[in-house]
């Protein structure tokens, strides 16, 4: 103890003349830091209501509630997160994980009210003073809890791909599949967009957990064509995927394929349900495409004896004859069909209804009939000269390729059209060594084909001629006469005729061009062939389509005989495999109900 110990404490007095540390009314003058984790904000238009915030919230502070003005629809559940500030701990994991990035936090932290109930609200839906706050917590650049990048799919390089009909997409390895499955947040927003309403989160979980038998069972609950759909499905689910709102959507289609690829056909029976006891009733299915065979599969499970009539030499319909094998190899399709046949479904190949046997006979011999005949008739170009021998039909070209026939397309090939058939025809022609032009009357972004089909066709060397309105097909001159044809088209501009509608191509006067081709493949579209349906069958039509009820029933019951159901491309507007499969399943349930099965 020295004298300093008695004097030093008085040094505090020097502070008496300094400015105090405290400030007046700090609440008024002190905004939160730019990163402050204050009250939540949500861009309700960007939010898709996936509920991942609710899933990560360790306090159970978030409820998903219906939000006025946000209806359920493709890729939007119509729900929005409601936050209970009695439980929230402001950790902002909800912000970190939000797939769309719609959730954030403002830097506002003062909210005083005498009613405790108000501290439970739906940000972005119930207006608050801090809505749209610039400052506040957002996840930092380069920091995300979810992976926005899809696991790359090993694919043949385009230069390699175009040389053969080998399958392009090689499929995920186990490690790749599990990593991709890990990206899914199991929100289930995709299910509504799938025509068959497959249990997508369920089978992705099965991939994640390595339980592929469970995965296969879940696939077959709604879709007996997992090998085919795992390759060529139009994957509306991926468009709805919540992860896709802030990155690449989960590769749902490839994961489905992974499950089916991994389980051997001989092991299917162990994983999948057995048929119920026979009901003693018989059903005829017309058309062995994905829709017809799906109906057959589900009817068989319900205990019906099913016979499928197929006009072609092989089952599979457009999956076999319309899709080239580099996209859907035949062994994969055979695996799907093989399992359905193994359950006892009889497929009568090469039997055409209307020729070998009439619909009326089926209606007399069976307890129900399901029509799933699809759209076998190609539309013509409908221009002068379209009957030229070098004008070919796209579907026919693809079918001939499937049958292994010599195509003799020549060196220069034009494909007219912008759908998937056009792309498949173009890429088939490329594989036969041709130089290929794709001519389409609108722009590339207007093409109905899948974007990846278009980009792959281009990458493999097809040249795209946009805004080309066909005018005429002429015979080539000189040495090429009869062997080649001249395709004449008019260049067009896109004109916005009516606001809100899509623009239409208008020919540019005088901008007429022509090119000589060895083959001109028309892939404009296809129509049904319902010549086998007679007036007396009692199946009313509208615009060449059978009119069906919610169960898929087409016959009205005014004519005696078994009820007729219809589905697939013949009936629906989607015109893809998965819709046909959904229709087949729906009709199977409808037939069962009508015939007094369990669902009756």
């Amino acid at each position: 103890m020295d004298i300093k110990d008695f004097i030093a404490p008085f040094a505090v007095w020097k502070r008496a003349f300094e400015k105090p540390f405290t400030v007046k009314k700090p609440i008024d003058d002190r905004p939160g830091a730019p990163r402050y984790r204050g009250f939540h904000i949500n861009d309700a238009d960007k939010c898709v209501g996936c509920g991942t915030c609710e899933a990560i919230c360790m306090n159970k502070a978030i409820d998903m509630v219906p939000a006025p003005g946000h209806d359920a629809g493709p890729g939007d559940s119509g729900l929005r997160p409601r936050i209970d500030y009695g439980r929230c701990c402001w950790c902002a994991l909800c912000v970190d994980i939000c797939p769309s990035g719609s959730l954030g936090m403002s830097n506002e932290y003062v909210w005083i009210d005498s009613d405790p109930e108000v501290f439970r609200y739906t940000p972005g839906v119930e207006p608050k003073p801090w809505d749209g706050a610039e400052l506040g917590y957002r996840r930092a650049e380069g920091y995300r809890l979810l992976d926005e990048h899809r696991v790359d799919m090993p694919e043949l390089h385009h230069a390699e791909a175009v040389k053969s009909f080998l399958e392009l997409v090689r499929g995920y390895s186990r490690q790749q599949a599990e990593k991709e499955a890990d990206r899914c947040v199991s929100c289930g927003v995709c299910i509504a967009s799938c025509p068959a309403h497959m249990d997508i989160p369920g089978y992705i979980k099965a991939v994640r957990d390595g339980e592929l038998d469970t995965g296969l069972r879940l696939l077959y609950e709604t879709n007996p064509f997992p090998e085919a759909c795992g390759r060529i499905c139009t994957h509306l689910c991926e468009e709805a995927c919540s992860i896709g709102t802030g990155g690449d959507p989960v590769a749902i289609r490839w994961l489905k394929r992974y499950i089916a690829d991994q389980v051997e056909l001989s092991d299917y029976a162990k994983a999948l349900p057995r048929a119920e006891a026979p009901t003693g009733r018989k059903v005829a299915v017309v058309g062995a495409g994905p829709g017809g065979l799906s109906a057959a599969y589900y009817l068989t499970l319900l205990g019906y004896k099913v016979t499928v009539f197929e006009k072609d030499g092989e089952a599979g319909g457009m999956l076999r004859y319309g899709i080239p094998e580099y996209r859907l190899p035949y062994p994969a399709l055979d695996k799907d069909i093989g399992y359905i046949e193994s359950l006892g479904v009889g497929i009568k190949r090469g039997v055409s209804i209307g020729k070998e046997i009439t619909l009326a006979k089926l209606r007399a011999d069976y307890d129900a009939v399901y029509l799933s005949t699809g759209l076998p008739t190609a539309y013509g170009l409908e221009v002068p000269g379209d009957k030229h021998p070098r004008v070919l039909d796209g579907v026919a070209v693809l079918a001939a390729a499937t049958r292994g026939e010599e195509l003799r397309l020549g060196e220069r090939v034009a494909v007219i059209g912008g759908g998937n058939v056009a792309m498949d025809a173009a890429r088939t022609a490329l594989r036969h060594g041709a130089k290929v032009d794709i001519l389409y009357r609108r722009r590339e972004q207007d093409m109905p084909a899948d974007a990846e089909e278009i980009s792959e066709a281009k990458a493999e060397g097809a040249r795209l001629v946009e805004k080309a309105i066909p005018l005429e097909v002429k015979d080539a001159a000189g040495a090429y006469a009869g062997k080649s044809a001249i395709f004449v088209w008019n260049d067009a501009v896109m004109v916005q005729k009516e606001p809100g509608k899509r623009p239409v191509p208008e020919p540019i006067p005088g901008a007429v061009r022509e090119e000589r081709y060895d083959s001109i493949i028309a892939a404009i579209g296809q129509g049904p062939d319902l010549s086998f349906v007679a007036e007396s069958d009692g199946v009313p039509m509208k615009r060449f389509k059978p009119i069906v009820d919610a169960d898929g029933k087409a016959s009205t019951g005014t004519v005696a005989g078994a009820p007729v159901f219809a589905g697939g491309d013949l009936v629906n507007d989607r015109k893809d495999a998965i819709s046909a499969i959904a229709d087949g399943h729906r009709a199977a349930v409808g037939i069962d109900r009508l015939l007094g099965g369990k669902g009756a």
Partner: protein
Amino acid sequence: MNELANELARRYGARDWHDQRPNLASVWVDAIRVHDSLAWLKDSAGYVHLSFLTAVDNIERKAFTLTYALRNHEKSHGLIVHCDIDRDNPTIDSIHLLWGQAWTYQRELKEWFGIDCPGSPRKDEEFVLEGWDAPPMMRRDFDSLAYSQATYEDRPGRESADPAAHMKQKLYPEASL
């Protein structure tokens, strides 16, 4: 460190030495030798510091696994000593004479797991759970959620919808699939 592993094995039948990282290892002994091996580690092997002791409920194999975390300051090395005891008759020798703070941990073991350390001071006094009448709370079969639901009331008016179920109800309620 293998020297120590061998020595422990020779003296106390220790087994399953595992180097978790260069400065942390774990080893297993029989419950009956845990006191002696800890005493030896403390007095003769330089592991003078008891970081903590606790238990892990391995309900699947009907055992509590005791964990004694020691530290050798000279070698800057941590050693976790494990032993299994019967979950139905959970008793273990007290080490309160080895370390002055051990009795508190043993009191915690009694209250949280129901593990008895005979001779440990004040082991039966309440530790943190005043008036606790449920089973020992850290046992795996004590369901804290069920307990809290039975004991406390939820705030009324909270309900949440599952996105997939909500969309089915709104968009395709008729689907029988």
